[in-house]
């Protein structure tokens, strides 16, 4: 079970959080002009890296804020947490 440092509340147990999957996927502004393939790419296709993964988490049983986490999918080490709208930090494992 992870110990996740919520940028608003500090470190809390994973049971307080919900994972929202890959971060930095913006909703296409012109969805009506996208092909089915482009739209399904937005809708369904997600990265599954071995190593650093930038992902969204929600402190659902806490402050209910969403934020981003740079987590290593192999070691589960959390390199950084940062707020929504902030650019992903570069991380060297």
């Amino acid at each position, binding site marked *: *079970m992870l*110990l996740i440092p919520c940028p608003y509340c500090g470190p809390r147990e994973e049971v307080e959080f919900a994972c*929202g999957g890959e971060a930095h996927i913006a909703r296409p502004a012109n969805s009506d002009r996208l092909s*089915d393939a482009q739209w399904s790419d937005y809708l369904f296709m997600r990265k599954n890296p071995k190593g650093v993964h930038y992902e969204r988490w*929600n402190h659902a049983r806490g402050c*209910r*804020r969403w934020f981003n986490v740079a987590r290593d999918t192999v070691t*589960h080490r959390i390199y950084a947490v940062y707020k*929504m709208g902030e650019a992903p930090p570069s991380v060297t494992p």
Partner: protein
Amino acid sequence: MTTQPYRLARGGRIDRAKRLRFSFNDRAYEGYRGDTLASALLANGVVLVGRGFKYHRPRGIMTAGSEEPNAIVQLGVGDRTEPNIRATQVELYDGLSAASINCWPSVEFDLGAVNGMMSRLFPAGFYYKTFMWPPSFWMKYEYFIRRMAGLGKAPDAPDPDRYDKTFAHCDVLVVGAGPAGLAAALAAGRAGARVILADEQAEPGGSLLASGETINGQPAAEWIAAALAELASMPDARVLARTTAFSYGDHNYVQMVERVADHLPPASSPGPRQRLWRVRAGQVVLAAGAIERPLVFADNDRPGIMLASAAATYVRRYAAAPGRRVLVFANNDGAYRDALALLDAGIGISAIVDPRPDPGAAIVAEIRRRGIEVLAGHVVAGTKGHGRVESAQVMKLDGDKVAGAARSIGCDAIAMSGGWNPTVHLFSQSGGKLRFDAARATFLPGAPVQAIRVAGAANGATSLQDCLREGHAAGAASAADAGAAGKAGDAPQAEPATPDEPAMPIWIVPSVKPVGEGGKHFIDHQNDVTAADLQLAVREGYSSVEHLKRYTTMGMGTDQGKTSNVNALALLAVTLGHEVGAVGTTTFRPPYTPVTVGAFAGHDQGDLLDPVRKTPLHGWHEIMGAPFENVGQWRRAWYYPKPGEDMHAAVGREAKAVRTGVGIVDASTLGKIDIQGPDAVELLNWVYTNAWNKLEIGRCRYGLMLGEDGMVMDDGVTTRLGENHYLMTTTTGNAARVLGWLENWLQCEWPHMRVYCTSVTEQWATVALNGPLARRLLAELTTDIELDPAKFPFLSFREGRVAAIPARIYRISFTGELSYEINVAPSHAVALWQALMAAGEKYAIVPYGTETMHVLRAEKGYIIVGQETDGTVTPHDLGMDWIVSKAKKDFIGKRSLARADTSRPDRKHLMGLLAENPSEVLPEGGQVVAEVKDRPPMAMIGHVTSSYFSPNAGRSIAMALIKNGRNRMGETVHVPAGERVIRATVTEPKFFDPEGKRLDG
């Protein structure tokens, strides 16, 4: 009552003044406080404690710790009975009762022992090879396999004991309170770190509890006492005995189980029986010690054959003699020290058999000086005995064979040692890789991944001095890493020891006959896996350790191969011609030792398993005798039976009353979200399919919410309360999800929007009046609201007072009747309800529950999200195109409605189904088929989503999702229901008042 013939006259950490009675296999014995069940059995001369799993050969006690593979017992009786408990870990208490497992009908006479004579029939992969064919025979096989295999019996009554769970945080968690662990805890604690020290045994001390060594000039026992006293004096050090750290998760999350009351007679202590500790440790010091490695020689499983360290432990710590003439068979110097402990206790040593050609350490010389024969360059090539080992066949070792004549040496016990395996389980679980150390012939911890240090025997240390030094250093470094700035003090000092001579790895001890033909070389005693089984598996192509494990069952079972895994891996490597260690290890999975399910459940059972949500009117429903329906965590009144009524009769009466008079329903569970802010309408435009810009203040609108995949996710009515103020309602079960959905979009996608969402579900109690008489009733209780439909039309909202209670009233309808949903503060709900009931008496007002509510909405063809929909249903599928805006440029899910799959015309459509026989109710969930055949498979074209008997339509009604349904209008379809097939006609999903004329009463 027998005496204790194998109890030594003096010594041990037992309390001879506290005599305890216990029974084993229905025979009465006596032991002392401080005994384990295993030590008490040995003291009573009981060496036959169980039977092997597969061959049912007699088995004895092999170890003195949690690694025990053989001596597993059924402990206790009745609802507290527990299977597969290691006798070596059971602390004796007065009145304890235990029994062997794996034997039928008794441990002395076991029918399964015939399996031993037919062992050629039980090769590796036996179960896969034998019981597969014919498949229909498996049921028969299974009955006998289970009977013969035993492995204990689960209790058949609820567990009467209580269990506790707790979280704990510390700077340094030390696992294991042997010399290394104690030294680590002392160092970390002195430096000022918050320390937890956990040990699985009854008292801290580990190997020191059976040691004659001294530390800081004190006997070990005195040093332990001093160390514990110092830890007790620290403000932030906690010592947990009887506590097994069994799992190591991410971010130094260690789970431990504390056996709080297992050492006491059942139900004799007021506290919990066990406690689950969930520890988040800044740093971990793993000082879990090491497990001695058995030697794999022919017939190495007879009762009386045990690990050398275990023999010394029984003698020193428990004053229980494992035998009177013990033969020692070992490849290392440590076992000589164990032999010396036995000699000092007055136990005879028949001989020491050592495969090393020329062991020359001082300890060997001392053993010889005491007149003990040391047979260097020899091995035990076989054993004999009935029920207990009686002799060992000792032969000269010649390369990888034995040579010369066998010499039979009489003995009643064999103390064996093949070296040591560091207890690296938790290190491996922490993600750290292991490395094979060829010099010590063992797997050692490699580079750590988490904040963990390994110290002492768990790190491969063999001398007490090294254990103390490593433990102290690890404790001090961990404290420093955790930010403790104090001084760790000096490492405890043991007497200097001369280094041991190297051990001689011998993975399989040769015998006169090839492996597999003479006696059995057991590797895994618990699963009865032999060296021959492993070699056969390798010949059959199983060269990966994980495959080998599954094929032979090696390393499985309740002991998870603690004594067997390394021997098996080494033999695999040798058989394949690889370096030992090159084949890797199997995964060390949690738990380290089995954990009672009750400890995981803790208090989270029964009424405490899940919260129950009750409406403010719950008590009234209870008084009226309403049964309740679970809707998520909510309890909702289901129907209100009058005396003599069943559900069908009650629902019939309620449903008719609503359409002819007036009904009242508790709708408080409806999800309610208060939405405020200048951009609230923009949010609504995004999350609903229809347009919200033109909604006036005081008006309500129904909305359908889609996922981005275009599938219906929720529905509900939203009301504009003020300029920038809306109240959204959601389905009862979806309230939290919808709030999360809104917050997700607002925070992650549209942070520029000025909108605030607040759950107000529990801030408003909702009472709905439905029926043609609703207006007349409500008019009697309100003076400040105009109820004329022209002034207060359908889909609008007014604020005022009902029965003098401040209320919000919404004219929305889930029945198709004239309806008022009255919202008041929860504290006023009962007063409101009672006022309406009293005033409604002359209108024959009828309270109705969720069942009638469902029937009434189904009569109208109104959907319930989650019943008519299942995450694969679009608005078009539901026939609800009218609510999907064409004008809006975008909304969530819009683009997906234009995908090829969602726009094809032959999707499943929501249709009505009328059974041919109007009194027959189709089964909900029933499969719809177009064509009936004699037997399955039949092509399924859909399923029934809702089905009721409709009192107002006077017949059964159903809704169903049917493939290409709108083009099947009028067709006959079939719904198989058990043995019968029900014929039904496809219709519009509207069964009452299709024109919707009744909304204004």
